[in-house]
């Protein structure tokens, strides 16, 4: 591929035929040629989780955000807020899909941008219309992922009325957090994020405290970050690897055998795993342990479980994971939307297939790897390489091998028998 993707700011359906053909040249849009024998006995997994982007914009200007600072700039062309007609249509499509597949439960993540910019009334409307559209027999679980800076008692009333659990993004202590999570003016957001977590820790709100999301920065001491997060007594922490690809590697990740992210995470693993009492849950570690014990992952970062979620952007477009924005402009697009298309139609999109076929959709090297059932090829966006697409090991491959080996060793050393 010779052209530079960085100049393409439009979703694929708006690209010229030439650009579109160029994009279609990479796997899985081109070359997803699964053996007929596999497809003959295979049915896509219905979509059980929806990430609804109520807001396109954000009140912060974090320099590591995959929505605003990476290859994709499509947020500029979206409505600032998801219109109520789009919310209603989205809810109807979700209900239609749930009824068609006789699903007992549906999960919805309210997301953005910063979803609290939508306002308390819009959150209330969204939750009400979702509940009204779904059959009463379908359990609805709604969560919201926020930077916390706008969380108030007014929001808490709405969140309580719909039992919406709240996840807050925070990267450690003030200096660590404010290195990235700043307003456009340069002012840090730690104080307000911490205040939001303290609000959620009030006895009257504690049941809605969902957990903390921390993006790893190798410059931060891992145990200091963990200690800082523990002070908020979170029920669960998720550590995120910074998004990057083979074509645009994440900070500190090069072609060498060095494993800085595995080393960083392993320090926290040992502190967490060998604590006399369990201090909190750490999603990534629990997933790896569960996989090593023979279970199946419920996270799309590791393991071979089929991905069961879609993103609905503020304009109603149906998209793949937002993190694909780290790859190239338009990477999350399916070309489908809630007005013209059913959710079932999205299940046949090549990239949705690629995320549901497990081992069959991994690079040859991954398929031959001894730890593939635990690693699963890593997070899908991290496999991207310009020219070949997503049929590659993760750019974090050395770190994943090292981390899984470390966890496996510690697990063996402490297992009964």
């Amino acid at each position, binding site marked *: 591929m010779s052209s530079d993707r960085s100049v393409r700011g439009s979703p694929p359906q708006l690209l010229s035929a030439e650009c579109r053909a160029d994009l279609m040249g990479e*796997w899985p849009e081109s*070359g*997803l040629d699964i053996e007929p024998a596999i497809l003959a006995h295979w049915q896509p*997994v219905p979509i059980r*989780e929806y990430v609804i982007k109520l807001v396109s914009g954000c009140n912060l200007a974090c320099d590591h955000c995959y929505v605003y600072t990476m290859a994709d700039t499509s947020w500029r062309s979206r409505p600032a807020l998801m219109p109520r007609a789009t919310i209603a249509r989205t809810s109807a499509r979700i209900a239609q899909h749930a009824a068609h597949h006789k699903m*007992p439960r549906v999960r919805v*993540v309210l997301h953005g941008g910063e979803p609290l910019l939508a306002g308390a009334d819009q959150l209330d409307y969204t939750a009400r219309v979702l509940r009204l559209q779904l059959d009463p027999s379908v359990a609805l679980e709604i969560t*919201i*992922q926020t930077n916390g800076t706008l969380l108030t008692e007014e929001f808490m009333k709405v969140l309580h009325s719909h039992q919406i659990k709240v*996840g*807050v993004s925070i990267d450690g202590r003030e200096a660590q957090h404010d290195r990235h999570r700043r307003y456009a003016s340069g002012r840090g957001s730690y104080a307000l994020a911490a205040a939001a977590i303290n609000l959620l820790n009030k006895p009257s709100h504690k049941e809605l405290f*969902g957990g903390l999301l921390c993006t790893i920065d190798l410059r931060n001491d891992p145990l200091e970050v963990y200690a800082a997060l523990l002070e908020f007594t979170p029920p669960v922490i*998720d550590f995120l690897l910074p998004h990057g690809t083979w074509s645009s590697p994440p900070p500190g990740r090069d*072609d*060498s*055998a060095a494993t800085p992210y595995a080393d960083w995470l392993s320090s926290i693993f040992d502190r*967490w795993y*060998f604590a006399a*009492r369990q201090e909190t*849950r750490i*999603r990534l570690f*629990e997933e790896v*342990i*569960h996989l*090593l*014990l023979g*279970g*199946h*992952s*419920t*996270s*799309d970062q590791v393991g071979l*479980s*089929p*991905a*069961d979620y879609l993103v609905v952007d503020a304009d109603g477009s149906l998209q793949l*994971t937002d*993190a694909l924005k780290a790859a190239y402009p338009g990477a999350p697009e399916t070309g489908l939307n809630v007005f013209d298309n059913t959710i079932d139609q999205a299940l046949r999109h090549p990239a949705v297939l690629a995320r549901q076929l497990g081992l069959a959709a991994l690079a*040859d*090297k991954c398929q031959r790897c*001894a*730890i593939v*059932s*635990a690693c699963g090829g890593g997070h899908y966006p991290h496999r991207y*390489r310009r*020219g*070949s697409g*997503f*049929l*590659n090991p993760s750019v974090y*491959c*050395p770190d994943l*091998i*090292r981390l*899984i*080996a470390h966890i496996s060793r510690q697990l063996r050393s*402490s*297992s*009964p*028998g």
Partner: protein
Amino acid sequence: MTPGDQPEHPSALNDLAAELTPLVDLSAVPLAELRTTQSPVLANCIRRLEREVADSEAATAGFNSAV
């Protein structure tokens, strides 16, 4: 499936991956004994495994968020 331009693992890590058995084999350990593990983390993971075995719904991979 069309092979992509697949980067190689650094060789030392290839060796490490090859040496690993992907599953921690606890099949010889009675369930009652597993439940008595002194590790609270492992105990929780074993309870999760029991729930998964009992649940008829296949596991799926959800959105990457803290909640």
